[in-house]
């Protein structure tokens, strides 16, 4: 067992190195050994995939890397990231080497001979590296063709396939990180927030929070291992982190489209509370301009009336209890302001009036 774990770690290092310029020192023999190693570990994956104890041990060793704090750059792991990756580690290694310009000509030539032996025994293709690489190329072409011809972004963001895929990946990774270390997910997410474009990240977060409880793939794995992972757990760490970071939740509520936020708020009451709090806060920043007859803000980052109204309108179209909660909040704010019926005195009055007439 120990030797297996050691080999796992060492191969992980090799995999990490395969992406760097260090490969310029590799010759054909090195490439051969690396590929053999990968093949061996793939065999290990196949053999011990259903063996809960061994699999657990291997997973744990791989998860260790997530425990490391700090680390520069958004991609902490260059090596093997999880047990699943073992299943196609030879593919990962091959792709990295193929793309690495630092690999010498002789070594590269050898690599090609190994990976693409040419037309051989038909039917045996599926299991081979040659087959997998060709399939990958084919699938990428397929994605491209779909995107450029018939595909269009789903207006319901959480059902858009690109969003869904990213969301699924995020939750999967969070689960692994979480198993390695309790504090893991939070730190991991913070690191992502620092390094990735915020807009996409926020959308993916929203989509992740709206994913159905448990994807079929996970269910399959769960039943295989006899390891009940509670369905609701998946988004919990994400939610926890989101609500804990004021900078993020504010950006979340401010920048995402109203409809999307309504869906998230409807699904997660904790979010609806924070969201409503922020909305009321933003509302209080506006004052009534008597001359123009509209509510305006003083600073550039103030949320304009139209947007505020739009968000409230979307919330009021949600099913109860969210809808009721929103109306209750608005009414109580209105009452706090003096319960005026006349427009222009309290923004809450005006909002309620506008919502009633608009609805």
């Amino acid at each position, binding site marked *: 067992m120990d030797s297996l774990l050691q080999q796992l770690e060492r191969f992980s290092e090799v995999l990490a190195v395969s992406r760097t310029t260090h490969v310029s020192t590799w010759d054909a023999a090195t490439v051969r050994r690396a590929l053999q190693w990968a093949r061996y570990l793939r065999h290990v994956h196949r053999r011990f995939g259903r063996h809960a104890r061994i699999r657990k041990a291997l997973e744990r060793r791989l998860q260790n890397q997530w425990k490391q704090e700090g680390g520069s750059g958004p991609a902490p792991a260059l090596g093997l990231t999880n047990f*699943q990756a073992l299943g196609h580690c030879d593919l990962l290694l091959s792709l990295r080497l193929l793309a690495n310009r630092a690999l010498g000509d002789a070594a590269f030539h050898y690599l090609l001979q190994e990976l693409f032996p040419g037309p051989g025994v038909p039917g045996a293709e599926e299991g081979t590296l040659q087959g997998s690489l060709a399939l990958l190329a084919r699938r990428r072409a397929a994605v491209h063709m779909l995107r450029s011809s018939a595909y269009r972004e789903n207006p319901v963001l959480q059902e858009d396939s690109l969003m869904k895929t990213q969301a699924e990946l995020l939750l999967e990774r969070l689960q692994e990180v979480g198993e390695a270390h309790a504090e893991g997910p939070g730190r991991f997410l913070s690191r992502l927030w620092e390094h990735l474009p915020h807009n996409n990240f926020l959308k993916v977060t929203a989509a992740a929070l709206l994913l159905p409880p448990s994807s079929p793939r996970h269910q399959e794995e769960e039943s295989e291992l006899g390891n009940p992972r509670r369905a609701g757990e998946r988004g919990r760490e994400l939610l926890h982190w989101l609500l804990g970071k004021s900078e993020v939740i504010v950006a979340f509520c401010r920048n995402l489209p109203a409809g999307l936020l309504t869906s998230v708020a409807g699904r997660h009451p904790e979010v609806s509370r924070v969201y409503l709090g922020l909305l009321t806060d933003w509302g209080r920043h506006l004052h009534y301009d008597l001359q123009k007859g509209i509510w305006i803000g003083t600073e550039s980052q103030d949320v304009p009336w139209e947007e505020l109204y739009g968000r409230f309108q979307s919330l009021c179209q949600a099913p109860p209890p969210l809808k009721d909660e929103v109306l209750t909040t608005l009414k109580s704010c209105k009452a706090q302001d003096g319960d005026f019926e006349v427009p222009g005195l309290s923004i809450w009055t005006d909002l309620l009036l506008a919502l009633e007439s608009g609805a």
Partner: protein
Amino acid sequence: MAQDSVGLSSDYQFWIQKLSVWKQASTLETQQDTCLYLPQFQEFLRQMYEALKEMDSNTVIERFPTIGQLLAKACRNPFILAYDESQKILIWCLCCLINKDPQNSGESQLNSWTRGLLSHILAAFRSDIKEVDLFTQGLGYAPADYYPGLLKNMVLSLVSELRENHLNGFNTQSRMAPERVRSLSRVCVPLVTLPDFEPLVEALLTYHGQEPQEVLWPEFFGAVNEAFLLKKICLPVSAVLCLWLRHLPSLEKAVLHLFEKLVSSERNCLRRIECFMKDSLLPEAACHPAIFRVVDEMFRYALLETEGAPEVLAAMQVFTRCFVEALEKENQQPKFALKTYFPYASPSLVMVLLQRPKDIPQGLWHRPLKRISEMLKEIVEDETQGSSGGPFENWFLLAHFGGWADIAAEQLLTSVGDAEPPEALLWLLAFSSSPGDGPQQRAQTMVEVKAVLSHLGRLLRSPTLSAGNLLAAAEESREGDPRPPACQQLTRRLLLNFLLWAPGGRAMARDVITLMARTDEIMHEIVGFLDQTLYRWDHLGVDAPGSRKLARELLAELRGQA
């Protein structure tokens, strides 16, 4: 080899030109044209590879100076990369360009360029979804990890959009625009054999838009049909049914493909034919009358062309049997009246023919036989009736359910020597073996058959029963003139039945057959008879262990000899 390379050079020029026109296949015309040539281009690539792999990198450049251009252009065309094995063969060709040990900057540059192109194939179209790439990298995933999942999600999303159209019949907003559906069908052409695309192909096939004309691209149907016939894609019957209903050429190809298989595979094995038949999904699809009519028409044509070849007849009978089985599987009321399947036949005749002998006790089989015979006689010999088709049409109808004629022959033989053979059965046999005869000739045939039967009956009780006698009884006509060939076939059949059923006959079986089988054709006929008989007995559950054993043994022996 020299000739090959000359052919290759001229093809080369043709393809370089084509690729230059196609570029990235971003317009409708270039996409359509690319799709038409995908199989041929792949074949060309294979030939190129065979030529290139014998050369080293420098020789390649000498021989094909513009090879780089050709390969680069091919790599930029997503339709080519998406098709079948083309991406793999392109990679092989590129591998031939790599120099293990470049001696000068030129060779180094070539290496560098080739590596770039290889990278492009395997890591292509990156810029397309930059945010996704960044995000997944941040998570520590490689494209190899998530591309299968992404493709699956995209396909599912498109499938649900297509199916939504069914539910939102008149809701124009959520309906997928016809142009998008068409474009989607175009994109699918190179990808029908990719397993991830199966749900999408199925959804497209079963998609019914609001437009009166066909919205899917015709080449799409062709590509799906090809893939289906070569078993490169798995589709449910409902999808295949839609394919064949919407695209007649595909249906015709499917039937021809079946015919080819039947001809090339082991003939005279009905069990295997039944397997092929069911596998092809044609009997199930034929529950839809439009499809049945087309298939039937092709059988009719084949029969006419081959002048009633027994193999075609047998195949048609198996098809009909499978078809009837499929019809009965649709538990509820049959959706279409029988008349839609057999529009030229008398409905009551069809009803009787469709009866399953299995459902009737063996002792009562003579009743439906008599009915069939009488009805046919009335239709065929009554010249004033023109509506139910001539003799050929009715014979063709009867041929679908050939089992009845076989049963008639059997019935005559099992009761040989007892009573007078029923006229109805004699008529049926005579008609089925030569439908073209006039009433007089037929009556003559019936008399001949009667004579043979009574002769056989006498021999049965005679002590001088021998193989030679039996053969003589069957082959000699009353007047000593040679009988017409169809009649000879008929008497041979009667004799064979006799050998299987009459206890005295069984003992002589081998000897008689040896004497009978004077030509290959006759041997063939005997093997066919035995195979068909066993097949029929299996289906009807006929209990005749002695006859069955004999038939099986004979069949094995004769097949071994052939």
